């Protein structure tokens, strides 16, 4: 079986900020009244150094690119000397750049099929964000964009572990990105099964290396653990669902959803909260009332995120090195 990977750097663009220290501080405080929508502040999407390269980019591409750049910058030392051909890229998104997609549909309907704008088309494909990231960072290894409405991030990490183990790459930049848009918000609000798909946006990226490389923590998407210090769940209702029993014993269970909201990329944000908990060595996020909690504060040395899809569990386990 393939071994865990090492997390070398983290980048995030979230509704509660982009600075990891600031995000961690907010995760340690009560989230307060929940907004209806969890939006990323436009101020976070400015990066003067790359403004020219990003002049045609939309919010989807900007969120992904800036989170990826941050992860890359924060892992600079660990990636020094690694040829660009040996750094891979995996980007996952459930809804993709749907705002640009709807704009292209508007172009067609308003101006005719033969007069739609090419820039809107080329930026409306799922892989546009990966193209920007690869171009800005000059990443020449394998580059993949995937889509899933539930466990895209888990599958992306699993594939990254496989690439690292087989020597396809020495580093893999893997991330999830989702955006909010009025049309999907309106549509999703009328579809009960989709209510968690379009209420939040943001991006989380990790730079991963092989298990023998020193880093922040290890990460493993292959096998669910039996025990964990901290269990992070996107939707607490799953604890009450007899069809999806969680067979993981957790000392404490939290959710980061009141801070980041729900989206197809929720797993990535739960993982971000779990990683920051590891760094703080204490649980962040909102404890889930229906789950057992320790009577005294406990140190968090490992954490697990949990989701299900089609009755199959999908987990991400992280541990301090």
């Amino acid at each position, binding site marked *: 079986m393939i071994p865990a990977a090492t997390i070398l750097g983290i980048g995030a663009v979230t509704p509660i900020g982009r600075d990891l220290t600031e995000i961690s501080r907010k995760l340690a405080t009560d989230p307060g009244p929940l907004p209806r929508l969890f939006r990323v502040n436009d101020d976070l999407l400015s990066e003067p150094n790359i403004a020219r390269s990003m002049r045609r980019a939309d919010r989807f591409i900007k969120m992904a690119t800036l989170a990826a750049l941050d992860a890359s910058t924060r892992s600079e030392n660990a990636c020094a000397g690694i040829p660009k051909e040996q750094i891979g890229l995996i980007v996952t998104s459930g809804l993709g750049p749907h705002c640009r*997609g709807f704009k292209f549909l508007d172009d067609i309907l308003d101006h005719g099929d033969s007069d739609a704008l090419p820039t809107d088309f080329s930026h409306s494909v799922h892989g546009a964000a990966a193209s920007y990231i690869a171009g800005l960072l000059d990443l*020449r290894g394998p580059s993949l964009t995937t889509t899933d409405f539930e466990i895209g991030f888990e599958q992306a990490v699993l594939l990254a572990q496989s690439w690292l183990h087989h020597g396809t790459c020495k580093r893999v930049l893997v991330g999830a990105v989702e955006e909010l848009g009025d049309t999907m918000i309106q549509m999703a609000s009328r579809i009960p099964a989709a209510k968690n798909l379009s209420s939040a946006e943001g991006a989380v990226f990790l730079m991963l290396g092989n298990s023998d490389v020193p880093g922040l923590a290890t990460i493993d998407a292959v096998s669910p653990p039996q025990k964990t210090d901290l269990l992070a769940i996107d939707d607490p209702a799953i604890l009450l669902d007899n069809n999806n029993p969680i067979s993981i014993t957790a000392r404490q269970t939290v959710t980061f959803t009141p801070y980041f909201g729900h989206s197809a990329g929720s797993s990535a944000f739960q993982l971000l909260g779990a990683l920051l908990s590891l760094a703080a060595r204490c649980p962040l996020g909102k404890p889930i009332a229906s789950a057992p909690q320790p009577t005294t504060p406990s140190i968090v040395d490992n954490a697990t995120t949990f989701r299900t899809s089609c009755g199959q569990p999908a987990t991400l386990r992280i541990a301090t090195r």
Partner: protein
Amino acid sequence: MRDMAMPRTPVCIAGIGVVSAAGADVPATLNTFATGRRNPSNSLPFESTIACPTFQVDADLPVLPPRYNNCRSLRLTMHAVRQALEDSAISRFDSATRVGICIGTTVASQLNNIPFYSAYRRDPDRSLDPVIDYLHANLARAVGDLLHTAGPRMTIVNACSSGTDAIGVASSWINSGLCDIAIAGGADELSRVAIAGFWSLGVMSSQPCAPFDRDRSGLNLGEGAGILILESAAHAQRRGKSHSFEIAGFGAACDAHHLTAPHPEGRGLDAAIQTTLSQAKITPKKIAFINAHGTATTDNDRAEGKVISRIFGSDFPFLSTKGFTGHTLGAAGGIEGIFTVLGLREGWLPASPGFVNQADDIPIAPTRARTAIRGEYAMSTSLAFGGNNSVVLIRRIA
């Protein structure tokens, strides 16, 4: 990169299934190759002001459960999946078998229903059934639901290299021990959005496409699905099945050059090809032929032709089958991977459809007539938006 890639354990190809404008199945496709008959259509299956040839599927596609049946890409997928499973002599999966599902697509991943959206703009309170259909149309998930499988799954949206990438990902799952069998390939339907999109980029031709030709004027879009059943050698042995073909290597590399145009010297494609050769520990001389991406756009064919000539020499046999199928986007890698298997199996290639005159800017010409093929190895190459380049190396072992 090629020096640090570990040699891969070959992955068996247990079965194949394909549907495109070239034919509803493998026998029909081979008949098309033998006759050289092309059938582009000048009428679209939907309203559009753009006049262009497209390559459409003429087949009885399976009827799926109601929530899935409105997704033509999924119906194309299941048409090919069922062929491939039959070819593999697999009638069902037992609960102990881990089955990976990796499908490439473009159209199915987006809400592309223009009639619905047009009506929605006028009346936002209308039924959202098309949106619900879209939310059920993640191809890998849907195939897993329909076949009741358990195992890793992934829908790849890497534009035109998606199908080839899916074969690579599925192979890596089997090599990693994450599944015993994998259903891998690609599927895409014709879409008014894609037609408008490629037209806006100025890369579509108003004539039947002519890949690598001096007078090439752009691509034609097509639809279809190509599915391979991949299997670990150990599982094949347990089933008592032998195989004639295997995935001997896979390489992928990004140009990091431009959002839509390939690197002019094809540096990413070159790297991906070298990776597969290194994995299989063979030299370019061992490659019998290449099924090239060959879209008939000026930039793609020039870059790809340069790389093929540079690595394999100017007399090397290669072709683009998009003259028979059109550019099937996410399906292309799956369909052309299967065409590569067929070339090795049958021992011949058709003339590259649409090609008449060698181009001044391409130092190599594709097959001009039916060409006998001898050899163990062949490649299928795919280039995509975003500068993605993917190559699958297939070997005949029996």
